[in-house]
């Protein structure tokens, strides 16, 4: 999906998922490590922590999409 959107539509993609080695293997370019396999985009159980985690991931994604890259890049910060 990530590769096809970039290739055929020419739209840059930020890929958020948990297992970074798989994202590197499948050819994602802008990679953001998610939280855990069953809940990559949040921390269920504690509303405050969940909200903070979601905001952080969202801000990191915006940063990644606006950063010029010339190779596969993992955005840890």
């Amino acid at each position, binding site marked *: 999906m990530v590769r096809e959107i970039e290739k055929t539509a020419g739209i840059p993609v930020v890929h958020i998922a948990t297992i970074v080695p798989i994202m590197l293997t499948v050819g994602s370019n802008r990679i953001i490590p998610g939280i855990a*396999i069953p809940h990559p985009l949040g921390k269920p159980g504690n509303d405050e922590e969940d909200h903070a985690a979601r905001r952080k991931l969202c801000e990191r994604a915006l940063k990644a999409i606006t950063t010029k890259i010339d190779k596969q890049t993992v955005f840890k910060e």
Partner: protein
Amino acid sequence: MKLELRQAFVRDVQWGEKTQMKEGVLFIDKADALSLLAEEKRFTHLDMDLARPGESVRIIPVKDVIEPRCKLEGKGECFPGFIGGSETVGNGATLVLKGAAVVTVGPIVSIQEGLVDMSGPGTEYNPYGATCNVCLLVQPAAGIEKKEYETALREAGIRLAWYIADKCRDAAIDRSDVYEMADSVEGKAAECGSNLPRFVYVCQAISQGLLHDTFLYGVDVKQILPTLVQPQEIMDGAMISANCVSACDKQNTFHHQNNPVVMELCARHGKDLNFLGVIVTTEMMTLVGKIRSSEYTVKLAQMLGAQVAIITEEGCGNPDTDICMNAKNLELAGIKTVVIGNEVAGQNGASQGLADVTPEMNAYVSCGNINELVELPPMKKIIGDIRAIANVSGGDEKSIGSDGTIVCEIQSIIGSTNELGCSKIGCEWI
């Protein structure tokens, strides 16, 4: 550690007035066996049925399969942490009812349960078409959470398997195999000399919660750091399946008890290799967990002085990263690796079989493509509920033909691509 597996061959199973073995026939006192679970409030209905090799019988949906075993001599009891206490097992003598199995069946716990056929082409895919099966059938109590239901069914299956063995302690023994090796690394070196290559077995166990779990001595494996066990402990039921991974590649308790990698390495210890032991490691649901377990596995292998590691996978998808990390990190530490796993290559076999790859994973034994389609002819008797195939991974509502024929991916068959190699199929490079 020295373990003698005393095997009584079970050639038939029948209902009887007393649970016992007599001239190769396992008799089950149904009322007595069911009374074991009379206090279990998590089920509203309990029943048992029998299935024998060659019969026109299909069992579905199957949760776990367990070989009846109990201790005859030595410390502890088989299935430690569930039956008896937590003493270290693996020494002494163990009764094995070879050719018998307890099969747990109930309305589906998760989409990832499967079927067992007692005759026809389905028997090619697992050992259970050739065993005399004592099926435990349950109905969960209304409103019970899936996790509780899984726990209840798992515990019930283990209790029934142990109960059957326990009632057959005086069974005539048809075959006895002794598995003996020194406890320490030094002792093993003395047994093997300095020329034999030093092997460890890295057993990856699914450990992710959400019905994807394994227990070791009663401890939930997702709570452990990788740890060391002697092979005989595994034969005594130290590892218990608690998972609902795809039917084809979830390691049943039976698979752990009969792990072919463990058995083969034991058989060759002192002959052409030195088997240092088993590293039980995890397949976690976070990246940091996977990294930690892989790093720790390498450290344990190095502390033992291993030169070769055989790695087995459980499940597919994200555990592919665990096999890649373990192969890469071990190879970089100078330890040669071989991985045993399966493939998810699509029904035409043309897709990439693994979700993750790495150049260091340079020796891979495939136990088959889980997406391969198979046609299973109708059976005269169904134990369980045939409609479950609609919700089993590898099947759907169109899988059942009007005459009861099932067309599904082999992933719907329990143990069909078992990644310990406990099956008859595999792939060849073409």
